[in-house]
């Protein structure tokens, strides 16, 4: 039996006259050789019918959507129009409020922390935090050193051992 037309009949192509002729020829050949593929053929093409119908429904439902023009413009400006350093401060209005607010708080906090004296990161300086913010030095029992950022953050890192 010539199975070529049966191998992949449901890939979105409608049946042509030639395909139908091939099927009928293969069918009658099989009958003459003592096989009866009628049931199998009908089942295959019934399945193909359902799949073709489903593919057409998907085609109708899955339509392309147009992104917001303002978003497209703004992102292009950010990517092309401004240097990367300035892009940090560009208002990211396409983000949702629940994302924007914590992000803003974190950014302001990070900028604030960068202005604090390094010694203020320790808990003993906590009461004088406000004073440190204004540029006053924290009360210190030992001579003031200026540890690097890495050493200041060391207690926050997870211990591996």
């Amino acid at each position, binding site marked *: 039996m010539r199975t070529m037309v049966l191998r992949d009949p449901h890939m979105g192509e409608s049946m042509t006259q030639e395909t139908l002729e091939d099927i009928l020829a293969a069918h009658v050949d099989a009958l003459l050789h003592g096989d009866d593929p009628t049931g199998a053929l009908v089942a295959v093409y019934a399945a193909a019918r359902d799949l073709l119908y489903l593919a057409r429904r998907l085609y109708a439902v899955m339509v392309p959507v147009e992104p917001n023009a303002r978003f497209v413009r703004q*992102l292009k400006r950010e990517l092309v129009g401004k240097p990367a350093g300035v892009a940090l401060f560009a208002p990211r209005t396409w983000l949702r409020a629940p994302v924007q607010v914590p992000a803003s708080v974190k950014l302001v906090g990070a900028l604030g922390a960068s202005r604090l004296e390094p010694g203020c990161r320790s808990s003993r300086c906590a009461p004088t935090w406000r004073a440190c913010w204004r540029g006053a030095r924290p009360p210190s029992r030992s001579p003031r050193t200026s540890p690097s950022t890495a050493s200041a953050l060391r207690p926050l890192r997870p211990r591996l051992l």
Partner: protein
Amino acid sequence: MTALDNDRALDDDRAPDDSRTHEDIAALVVQAKHDREAFGALYAIYVRRIYNYVYYRTGNHQDAEDLTAQVFHRALGHIENYDERGVPFSAWLYRIAHNLVANWHRDRSRRNIVPLDEFVPSSHPAEAPEAAAERLGDEEMLLEALRRLPEDRQQLLILKFVDRLSNAEIGEIMGRTEGAVKSLYHRTLAALREELGAHAPEGALEEQPEKKPARRWLRRR
């Protein structure tokens, strides 16, 4: 070019002419490694496709915008390392998008977030309310079933029906042969049919399919 012209060029968010050849794109990519304007041209070509891909994978516009922005920022950051001999630029972008969406889904499943917004992608303005309700129910059911499919099958259907890519292009993006894509498409439809119990009603295939909006910028190359 004056500052005003430059500003207008930046604000020109229309979909670009889709007549660029593969060679044009390759030349733009080489130029984009040291020229932001060239990257802007690539952005204009692909932003809608990537947005659509992300939108159908996430189901809402806010996350689609957020992730699309991340895709292009990441592409801009890594374009110097991009090698044309590996995969086409579009496939590279889709892979970035795919990875970001996968991370997004992973984060969401960890935090167990339930989306509040509706997922109604299309609009048919001149339609009776009863017909619209029936159609929306049908569409919603189909899209729900789509979102329950494994990741690679969702990806395939989006690339096929929304971005209208050929099996060869989909194969490049998904890292499969054309034959494997064809086979996956068959298995995906069969799985969806099982899921939905969808059988074609009598005469259904003889009806004219719904008219679709113009897809100038999504036309297959």
